[in-house]
């Protein structure tokens, strides 16, 4: 008997996605050089913590799996060690592409679904506001991003660690540490955002 045809695929493929990545993502133009050798995913020090890894992520971009790419943990788990970029036999700036995909995921509102993005957001909030990471406020921001009850639960669960950190002077009580010129920092960041907006509009 003839084997039945597979069921109709329900997954949506956006066939213009690879082209969009090429034109809009930093380093995306070089992505067409990728030959799927696996050097990047194999070189990743936290490859086991990634759902896809860069090589598969690039294949998913080619396949047009837009939502899966933007909801992937891979773009948030990258530590920017640049192992993949240095070793890539085809000169693909893997790290740049992954970093910019994360930025685009924020821009298009995908981050709510991505667990790892919460921490990145809290980190960025602290760095932007104080010019430093304040362990207490950053952690609090991260915990309470899950909601009030969940935030309290997580905070209490880590209370012992927090006290230990205060005792060993790894965490302080009092006003958050700041850099001297937070206004200056914010001006730098504003300028960077302006340049980025201008260049990405020009399609650079």
């Amino acid at each position, binding site marked *: 008997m003839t084997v039945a045809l597979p069921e109709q695929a329900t997954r949506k493929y956006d066939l213009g996605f690879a082209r969009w990545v090429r034109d809009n993502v930093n380093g995306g133009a070089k992505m067409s050089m990728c030959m*799927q*050798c*696996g*050097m990047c*995913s*194999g070189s990743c020090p936290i490859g086991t913590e990634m759902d896809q890894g860069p090589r598969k992520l690039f294949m998913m971009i080619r396949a047009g799996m837009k939502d899966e790419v933007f909801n992937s943990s891979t773009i948030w788990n990258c530590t920017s060690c640049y192992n993949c970029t240095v070793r890539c*036999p*085809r000169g693909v700036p893997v790290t740049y592409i992954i970093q910019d995909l994360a930025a685009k995921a924020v821009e298009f509102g995908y981050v709510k679904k991505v667990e790892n993005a919460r921490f990145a957001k809290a980190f960025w909030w602290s760095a932007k506001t104080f010019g430093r990471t304040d362990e207490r406020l950053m952690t609090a921001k991260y915990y309470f991003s899950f909601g009030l009850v969940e935030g309290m639960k997580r905070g209490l669960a880590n209370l012992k660690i927090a006290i230990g950190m205060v005792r060993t002077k790894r965490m302080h009580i009092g006003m958050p540490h700041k850099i001297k010129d937070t206004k200056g920092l914010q001006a730098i960041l504003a300028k960077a955002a302006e340049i980025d907006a201008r260049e990405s509009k020009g399609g650079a």
Partner: protein
Amino acid sequence: MANQGPKSQTILVVGGGIAGVTAAIEAAETGYDVILLERGPALGGRVAQLNRYFPKLCHPTCGLEINFQRIRKLKNLRVVTMASVAGVKGEKGDYTVSVSVSPRYVNANCTACGACAEATDMEVDSPFNYGLSKTKAAYLPHEHAFPMRYVVAPSAIGTPEADKIKAACKYDAVDLEDKGEDFEVNCGAVIWATGWEPYDPEKLESYNYNLSADIVSNVQMERLANHDGPTGGKIVRPSNGEPVKKVAMIQCAGSRDLNHLPYCSRICCLGSLKHAVYVREQYEDAQVDIYYIDLRAHDKLEAFYQRVAADPQVNFVKSKPASIRIDEEGRPVLCGENTITRELYEAPYDLVVLATGMKPAASEGYVPDIAMEQDEYGFLVPSVEGDGGIIPAGVASGPLDVSMSVQSATAAALKAIQAVGPKS
């Protein structure tokens, strides 16, 4: 030389590997005077160091011996070993080539009796075995060397060992005062067949070639499998001499990599398939894993791939390994991503063979800047404005296997004959 003069019909061939030997013989057999220069002490080049050819698995010694017999019959072909070219001047039909001969310290009296090698205890790295073994400081380049004549290693000169070597020779063949010589050749055409160097595996940093003797290159694998190699042809772990049960081949080790050799070296896929056969012939229970990006068994060589792939103990893993680390037992462990299953693997092996690519020898050393030019990778192509009097052949012109090198060399011989004109 019969044809020396302002207009010469002599054909000079630079490089005594399979391409140079072929070009020289083909040109000489049509009656032209040919001079063949070889940088090393014997002809045959990389081919002499191979164990067997793909796809037929026959022995290169056979074809080389036929070629050496042809050379012996040709009175108009002169072979100069230990010779390299220091400069080329002139134009088609009238080149002046400066040749520099380095000392061999052994003259034509040598009968290859071997008394000199027995007389000394001094050893040097064997260049023929790619450093996998030592050889005596007075040595025969290899067992069927042409010319069949010993060499004394330069590092022995000036030591008491050199005197022992000289004293042992009954034929007055050892000349410790040999200073080499420089001379000029006038010729009408030059065939440039300087071949290739194996890409240096030490440059593949994450593969840690230096950390384990059990990580070898593909050219070393040829020596390991050869009956006159360092292990007498038994493929074993170089670190401890134990038999191999699990062997990995890493394809594109350097080739197709913008950080190393950007081009495909063309021979390594078939070379590794052949190495898998070497291992499987010797070990009934051995497993061979070939790590590849894609396998390039071009045109008719596909059949050889299918033959090897039919062996259930030869596996193909679609992955470019990211790194090699050494485990507590000293075994090399391949780390990377299987791109079919998306699994990250850490796989230990008894022996890892890096299929390193071919780097043109022309990328180092002297290359004439007339009539030829180097492409972006260092391979030689005839220059557009050139007069066609200097003709690249063999792997000097691009990555080729042996049969393609021979075709390239035969074509170069014809071009050289056309360059010097009908025999006068």
